[in-house]
Structure formats: structure tokens, C-alpha cells
């Protein structure tokens, strides 16, 4: 009998750790090869880990919710034969996936906090500690000491002022409910933080007349063949993107900023921002350029349903080169969508409303829609973004062009 250590494999894309979200086995279980062991969550995807061996579970590592580093032991088995760990779990037993330490040391040395600029708020260590505990930025607190030094009484007065009762007679509800941000919500939080921190966004919003498109769409939907899916607006946008993007290779791209490399793609892989019961997920329709409008519609339905019911594979949740984020029927005049890092652009169609507009010299009722978009200003200049959106607009306003070669 030997011991087999099942380690968290390298799931790729620079994932350094994964969260254990569910377990399927307990200590003492006899496990067959390929039997599910546990679910771990990485960047947006929940991945089921199956057993590579037959054996008896003798140890489980990490609780639910724990972050496990890649290469970390998840399950220990007792197996027939030698196993991969011999009698004792040695320190480095041929790890399944060895992670290299970060290869690029940043040249700058950590600057000690000691060289604080001469403008930092003046306060004693106790006052600074108290303020940090209370979550108060001392630069907002008026100091009463020499050179504006903040004494404990100043901090106390600031806190009192913040909590002063209102004069209206209405009482304050001071209840605070704490929720640990874990699982998918934490992934979303990290991803959004990353995108906003790294990418200098700029947004561009344009108005489109979609009367023609809507007429076409309604007509098609009323005369569908049995095998044809109903068309929403998005398949038209997908086909329009396929048509416009070849002229803008820098927009259909992923920017790996740490390597300083922009990967521009021939194929168009469209991320579809999808609201699920647990939060935002972005499944991907791959190679939209090879799909006609019907296939686009089918694939769109397939990947978004997979995302909603949790069956999307890792492959279906990564690799997009541009993202569509439709707020659909919820309305809203415009949005400033957050780019799906490391992409460089995101397109968000807003709600269609009927509005009086001047059309051919007359005030008429037209179906109008805004297109909101955001771009990574490191890669995309304002001029090019505007040209891109103008071309997209032309196609959306005159949808026949989408289908002309």
C-alpha cells in the first residue's frame, strides 16, 4: 500500500490559488478513478476535480471556503502499489504542476514607509492607530495642536460630528449587517477591481436609429422556420462586430500589459455579459466570424444558459476578445461599462425607445437606441474608437449592409 497525494493542478491562465467550494468525498471513502472529489472555484469557473486513482481517502486538506495554492495537497489517498508519496508525505514529491515563482522581479525596492512626505497629517502613533481602526482618513480631521497636529480630542470630536443626531425627528437606523464576500461575488469583486485599477477607461456613447433593424427583426421573427431560433438584437450586434472588426484589429484584442504585448485576434470571440442568480458571468461565443446569424443566436442561447445553470466549462468562460454587455429591457440612457480585462473594448447596447426625431426634414416617431462603449485608452485612441462606433452605427442603422459581402 502506498500513499497518493492529489494536488491542486495548475489550471492555467496564471491562476495561483483556488477556493474549495464543495466536497464530494469524506475520510474513509473508497474512491474510484474519475469519481468526483471536490469542486474548486478559480477565476469565474467552478471546476470539478475528479480522482486520478482508485483508493481510500485518508486525509482532506483545507476547509470549504479555504484558498488552496496551486500544488497544494487537496486529498490524500491510500492506494494499491507505491502511490506518488511513498510512506511519508515528503516535502516535494514530484508535484503534478509546479508553479514557477514570479519570473519578473520588479526592479524597484520596497520603499520603507519611513520616508513619509512632509505633508502627512501630524498625529501621534496612538491617534494614527485609532484613526486607522475607525477607518478615518486623518487628512479629513482638523487638528487643533501646533502645526495642525491632531490630538485624540480632535479625532473624538470628528467622530461625534459624524454621529450627530438629525434635527428632523427621524431616527437613524444604525444597523450594519456584515456579509462575507466569498465565492463568485469575491471573484467578480477582484476582477472588477483589477480591470478598473489597471485599465484607463474612456467611454463613448452614440445614438442609433434602429427603426429599420427592428422592422427587419420583427418580420423575421414572425416568419420563422421551425428550425430557426427567435432573433434578439444581440445576434445582429455580433454579426455587425464581425463585419467591422477586421478594420480595427487593435480593438479585437487582449492586452497583456505586464508583458507589454497586445494580442490581436483574427477570430472574433465575443464575451456575453450574463446576469446569473449568483452574479455576473461572461460566457464566450467563440469564432463568431464562422457563425451565421442563426448560429450566433443558437450559440448565444447555449452559452448563456450554460452560465446560468452552472454547467459552463472553463473553456466557455474564457478567451473572449471583445465583450457585449446589454442591459436590455432594464432601460437606462447610457452606461460606462467596465472592460473585461485583458480585453480592450466593451460594447453595451441600451434600451430602445420610441422618440420624436427629425427624419428627412420631418418630426417623426423613430425607434432610437444608445450604444455605450468603453475602451482601454492605452491601446485605443479616441479617434479610432469614434470611427469604430460610427461604422458599427452605420451597420445597425442599415442592417442590410451586415449581410452584404
Amino acid at each position: 500500500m502506498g500513499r497518493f497525494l492529489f494536488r491542486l493542478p495548475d489550471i492555467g491562465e496564471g491562476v495561483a490559488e483556488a477556493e474549495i467550494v464543495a466536497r464530494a468525498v469524506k475520510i474513509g471513502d473508497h474512491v474510484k478513478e474519475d469519481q468526483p472529489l471536490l469542486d474548486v472555484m478559480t477565476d469565474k469557473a467552478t471546476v470539478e476535480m475528479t480522482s486520478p486513482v482508485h483508493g481510500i481517502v485518508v486525509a482532506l486538506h483545507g476547509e470549504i471556503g479555504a484558498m488552496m495554492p496551486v500544488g497544494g495537497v487537496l486529498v490524500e489517498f491510500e492506494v494499491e502499489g507505491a502511490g506518488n508519496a511513498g510512506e511519508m508525505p515528503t516535502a516535494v514529491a514530484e508535484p503534478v504542476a509546479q508553479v514557477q515563482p514570479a519570473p519578473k522581479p520588479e526592479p524597484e525596492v520596497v520603499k520603507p514607509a519611513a520616508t513619509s512626505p512632509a505633508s502627512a497629517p501630524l498625529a501621534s502613533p496612538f491617534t494614527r492607530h485609532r484613526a486607522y481602526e475607525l477607518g478615518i482618513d486623518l487628512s479629513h480631521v482638523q487638528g487643533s495642536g501646533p502645526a495642525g497636529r491632531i490630538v485624540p480630542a480632535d479625532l473624538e470630536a470628528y467622530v461625534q460630528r459624524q454621529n450627530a443626531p438629525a434635527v428632523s425627528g427621524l431616527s437613524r437606523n444604525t444597523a450594519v449587517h456584515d456579509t462575507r464576500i466569498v465565492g463568485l461575488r469575491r471573484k467578480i469583486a477582484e476582477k472588477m477591481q483589477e480591470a478598473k485599477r489597471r485599465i484607463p477607461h474612456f467611454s463613448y456613447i452614440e445614438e442609433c436609429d434602429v427603426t429599420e433593424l427592428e422592422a427587419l427583426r420583427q418580420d423575421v421573427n414572425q416568419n420563422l422556420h421551425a428550425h430557426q431560433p427567435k432573433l434578439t438584437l444581440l445576434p445582429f450586434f455580433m454579426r455587425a462586430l464581425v463585419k467591422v472588426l477586421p478594420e480595427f484589429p487593435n480593438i479585437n484584442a487582449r492586452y497583456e500589459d505586464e508583458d507589454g504585448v497586445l494580442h490581436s485576434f483574427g477570430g472574433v470571440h465575443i464575451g456575453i455579459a450574463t446576469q446569473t442568480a449568483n452574479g455576473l458571468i461572461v460566457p464566450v461565443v467563440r469564432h463568431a466570424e464562422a457563425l451565421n446569424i442563426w448560429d450566433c443566436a443558437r450559440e448565444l442561447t447555449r452559452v448563456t444558459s450554460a452560465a446560468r445553470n452552472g454547467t459552463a466549462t472553463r473553456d466557455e468562460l474564457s478567451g473572449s476578445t471583445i465583450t457585449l454587455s446589454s442591459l436590455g429591457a432594464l432601460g437606462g440612457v447610457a452606461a460606462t461599462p467596465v472592460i473585461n480585462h485583458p480585453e480592450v473594448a466593451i460594447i453595451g447596447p441600451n434600451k430602445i425607445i420610441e422618440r420624436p426625431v427629425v427624419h428627412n426634414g420631418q418630426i417623426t416617431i423613430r425607434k432610437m437606441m444608445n450604444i455605450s462603449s468603453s475602451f482601454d485608452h492605452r491601446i485605443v485612441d479616441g479617434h479610432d474608437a469614434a470611427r469604430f462606433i460610427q461604422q458599427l452605427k452605420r451597420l445597425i442603422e442599415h442592417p442590410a449592409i451586415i449581410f452584404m459581402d
Partner: protein
Amino acid sequence: MTETIKTKVLVIGGGPGGYVAAIRAGQLGLETVLVEAGRLGGTCLIRGCIPSKALIHAASHFATMVETARESRFGIQLETPPTLDFAQTIGWKDGIVDRLSGGVAGLLKRAKVRVIEGWAQFSDAKNCTVTTPSGPLTISAEHVILATGAQPVELPFLPFGGAVISSTEALALQEVPKHLAIVGAGYIGLELGTAFAKLGAKVTIVEAKDQILPLYDDKLVAPVQRWLEQHDVALHLGAKALGHDEGCLNIETREGETIALPADKILVTVGRAPNTFGWGLEQMNLRMSGPFVAVDERCATSTRNVWAIGDLVGEPMLAHKASAQGEMVAEIIAGQRRRFAPVAIPAVCFTEPEIVSVGLSPGDVPAGVEIMIGQFPLQANGRALSMDAGDGFVRVVAQKSDHRILGIQAVGAHISEFSGEFATLLEMGAVLEDVRGIIHAHPTQSEAIFEASLKALGHAIHI
């Protein structure tokens, strides 16, 4: 089957960072295990700060008596020169080290920290195997605090071994070398060089830069340089060490001339490098910052619940910084909201005379900030003169707009003891007028702090 320990907190390294973290974690009721391969106390206690200070102290005693035998001082004359049994000096130093290391063990025990003697090897960020004298055991921890410290940097053309030694061996020599060549005039090289010069060695110091103690400004360094020159310590600045032959160190001088310096021992003190190899750091997938482990202001690494402190995370590589970070990390693990944001980390240098620097020197002040400087010479301080130690000064650097003190530096005998007052003034956010309002005892050298502040305000009394 190997024993497996599951613990809340695992501390790697028993130096001033690690042991303080472990004691604090224990005080806070966290189940804590500390792994140390060598002796408790780390570089600081075993082969750094403490043993070097003991050696410096003994050397000063000896030097005073040698001088007194040569010529009468204060009317005191020794008929015969003193003799030195250096093995006994080292024995006395070892006694202090033993006492302090034992003390650390006692403190850890009282804090209910389990100490494991052995070398830890990580298999991932939270699990390691420790090779102990009684066999291997594995440790699985919820939180890992890395405090592996640093070690002397080796020069490729002067590898350690034989006559070429690091500070560790210099503190354990059994006799005083006749000729000691030192490569690197940082604080470690100068402290040891000064001590060995006082013990009778002929000391030569080789430094690649144009100044000794390149981290300090020339005004602070000048009294130290004067002492070295007066005591026949040869300095080769702007010079490069090339390699060594039997009994000598070959250097290229600033002028490009190659010369051989006589040397029984060659002490290489060109810096210290963090200990990042040999214990499985590469299995932990931590983000690095240059040679150091990258951490944020809470000493958190890029992997959750893995913390790193002390020399491993960057400059300044000082014991008191490591201890402060260790204490903080333990409190964060216990659920407190803390961060490492000192106004200043004091630095002291036990040369002859001593140097202390806290906060900004005039040259460090950011552009655009107008400053006022008050410098008071110890020549005008009664206590300094009564100790026959007039070479030195206290210098206060303040911001002109609001008189906030940005930094204080001093050089003089026993001046390192001022680091506490200097740091207090900076951390409490003192302005020059605060120091004016604090009565400093007479006759002490601390009056110089008061006078330097008055000088900055334009009305010093005693100059």
C-alpha cells in the same frame, strides 16, 4: 508514520522578527508553532547586533588602557600595557548570547509557543515538512509568517572560506588578526573594523564608493573618518577588491594602481541578501519585489494568509523593524486592524563615535519643501567635554512652514541612546517649539537636542 501538526500560526525563523511574532501570537491566544534551524535569536542575537556590541565594548576598554599605558590621561598612568586573552573575550560575549537566547526560549515557552528545532521545507504555501533531530514531521498551518532573515553577500572573486570571512566568523575568531582587511565600508564593516583596530589589529578598509558609510551624509560621517585616520586605520576609497593571495588582498586603487594589502583575514561586508532559497519559497508562488518577497502595508504577501516580515521583505534590514512587523502581523491574524506605517525607523551605527539617524536628512527632503536646520556641536556641551568626547553634533531638520520636525541626526559618543527621543519626537509629531518647551536635564548630552532646536528657531543659548 510522520507526525502531522495542524496549527493556527506557523512562524518560520526565530530571529527578532519571528520570535516576536510568535510571542505576540501566543499572548493573543493563537495556537502557534515556531520553526528555527539554528539557535533562537537569529542573526541579531547570535551573530549580529548583540555579539558585535559586546566585542565593541570590550575593545573600547582595552584600547583605553593601551592608550593610558602609552601616555597619562587625566593624570592616570599605567605602568605596563594591558594584556589581552581574546579567547576569554569571545567567551564573555558567548555568555551574553547564551543568556539572551535562553531568555527568548523562556519567553516563547511562557507564551505557549511550540518551538521546533529543524529546517522547514514548504511543499505549498501552507504546508511544510521539518527535518528535526528526531525525524521529519509535517506542519499544516492556517497562517504562515515568513521571517527567514538575510545573510552576508559573498563576492564571487572572494568566496567565504579560509582567510576570507563574513561578519559571522569575525565574531567568533579565536585570536585578533595582525592584519585585517575589510571589503565594504558600510556600518557592519566599520563597526567590526573599529573594534579590531582597538584590539590591536592593523586594519585596512576598502570601499568602492568615494565615502565611508555611503548611506549617511558626509557631515555625519566626518567625525568617524577623523577617528579612523587618527587611529591608523587605512582607508582605500573608490577602490576595487580584485581577489586574494596567501596573506594579502589585491585591490585596484582609485588611481588605477594594483596593490597588495597584507591581510591574515579578509572580512567581506558588502551587504546582506534575503534568505529566499532552500526552504521551498518557489513552491509558494509568492509575488516578488526584486530579491525580496513583495508585501503590502500589512506585510501580507500575494497569497492569502501568508505573511512575510523583516529582512525578507526589504530595506531597511534592521531588527527593530522586523520586530515591529512581527508584532503587527500577529495582531492582524488575531483580528485586529493594523498596518505598518511608522513615521520613521531609527538607524544607529556603533562606530567611533556613534551615529544615529531618524527621519529625513537635509538631502532626503523632497524638492519644494523648505526646511530649517539647527546643528549644535558637542564641543559646546559640558557633559560631552567631561567625557572627553567633544567630536560630534546633533542636527534637527524641520519644515519651515510649520516647524514640524522631519528628521534628527547625531554623531557622538554614546549618542545611539538618543534614538529613542528622536523617534518619539518624530512619531508624536513634534514641532521645534515642542522641544523648546521640554526641559532637558543638565548635565547631559541631551541638552544638545534642545539647543539644536533653539538654533533652528534662531536663538540657541550656548552658541
